[in-house]
């Protein structure tokens, strides 16, 4: 939270230190992802490869069933675009705070692991240097890949009943992510209820249940988010809270 006092700007070391708690959190989430991937027959090395190249939880979780079903590249690409669209907002916000001296190469490197959590930490800082951002991102990426590998290994090695129980882990985390904001905001709560309801319709209603998973995520999230953006637009200043008084 504190502004940087070093005249040369935030250092790589400071970034590394700020990345430690993110890394620890990522190990558990990516462990759950690793277990999930094994249920679709993804090998340990393949799951690590996916984590190292993507560094994103929801996107990877959506990708695995599509890949396992040999889905189309269009379905895969479009679902990744919608699910990960939020990174565009985060990178746009971070770009305002980047060190003016940062080169294009530096920016391309820093972009690699902009995640909800690294963004959350970086957005609290002053001017962001390339070295600080690289330090901040390094350990979370390592933790993300390592946790994935451990989870995938667990999925193949642990007793069947334990793996069955771990199958719910990633969904438990998703619930823990979306419920606290829903408690504070009725719009978020309604958004969650509508998306869950539409998702059930696409799962259980004949004919609609033939739409494949990636497209269901796209249709449901675009419809829901568009409706709520019209009904409950966020405030101009922070972009993080919907307008309570209407407009």
């Amino acid at each position, binding site marked *: 939270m504190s502004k940087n006092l070093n005249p040369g700007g935030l250092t790589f070391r400071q970034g590394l230190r700020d990345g430690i708690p993110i890394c620890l*959190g990522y190990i*558990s989430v990516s462990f759950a992802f690793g277990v999930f991937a094994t249920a679709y027959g*993804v*090998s340990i090395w*393949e799951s690590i*490869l*996916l984590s190292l*190249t*993507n560094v994103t939880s*929801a996107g*990877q979780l959506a990708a695995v069933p599509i*890949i*396992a079903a*040999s889905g189309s*590249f269009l379905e895969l*690409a479009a679902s*990744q675009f919608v*699910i*990960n*669209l*939020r*990174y565009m*907002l985060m*990178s*746009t916000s*971070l*770009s305002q705070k980047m060190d003016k001296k940062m080169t294009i190469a530096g*920016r391309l490197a820093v*972009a*690699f692991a902009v995640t909800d959590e690294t963004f959350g930490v970086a957005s609290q800082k002053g001017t962001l240097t390339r070295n600080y951002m690289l330090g901040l991102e390094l350990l979370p990426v390592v933790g993300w890949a390592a946790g994935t590998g451990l989870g995938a290994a667990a999925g193949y090695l642990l007793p069947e*009943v334990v793996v*069955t*129980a*771990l*199958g*719910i*882990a990633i*969904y*438990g*985390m*998703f*619930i*823990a992510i*979306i*419920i606290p904001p829903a*408690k504070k905001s009725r*719009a*978020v709560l309604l958004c*969650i209820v509508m*998306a869950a309801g539409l*998702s059930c319709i696409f799962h259980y209603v004949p004919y609609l249940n033939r739409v494949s998973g990636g497209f*269901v*995520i796209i249709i*449901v*999230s675009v419809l829901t*988010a568009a409706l709520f*953006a019209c009904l409950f*637009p966020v405030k101009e200043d922070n*972009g993080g809270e*919907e307008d309570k008084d209407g407009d």
Partner: protein
Amino acid sequence: MEIDFLTFLLYALVCALITYLLRALPLVIFRREITNRFVKSFIYYVPFAVLACMTIPSIFESTGNIWSAVAGFAVALILSLFGRSLLTVSLSACGVVLVIELAVRYWPFQ
């Protein structure tokens, strides 16, 4: 899984490319803040919709039987309402599922 490693690699790179472009383009090309209120609001709501859509109803098919999943879901929901951490919520859900799955498998009185 039906596909070989090279095909998997190709799929993984498609994901990685899209995800990376979303992260990189705003940093190198259009560096202006997004001001359109609808677009900002839309992007704000997408993660909630995506996570809800991916969780419901898939969570109910994520374990060995629907009842262990329902119990795990209930525990996760209640602990999240009390603001517990990701890890606590997730491990508690797993714990409840494990107990029920063990009971279903090894229940001696049937």
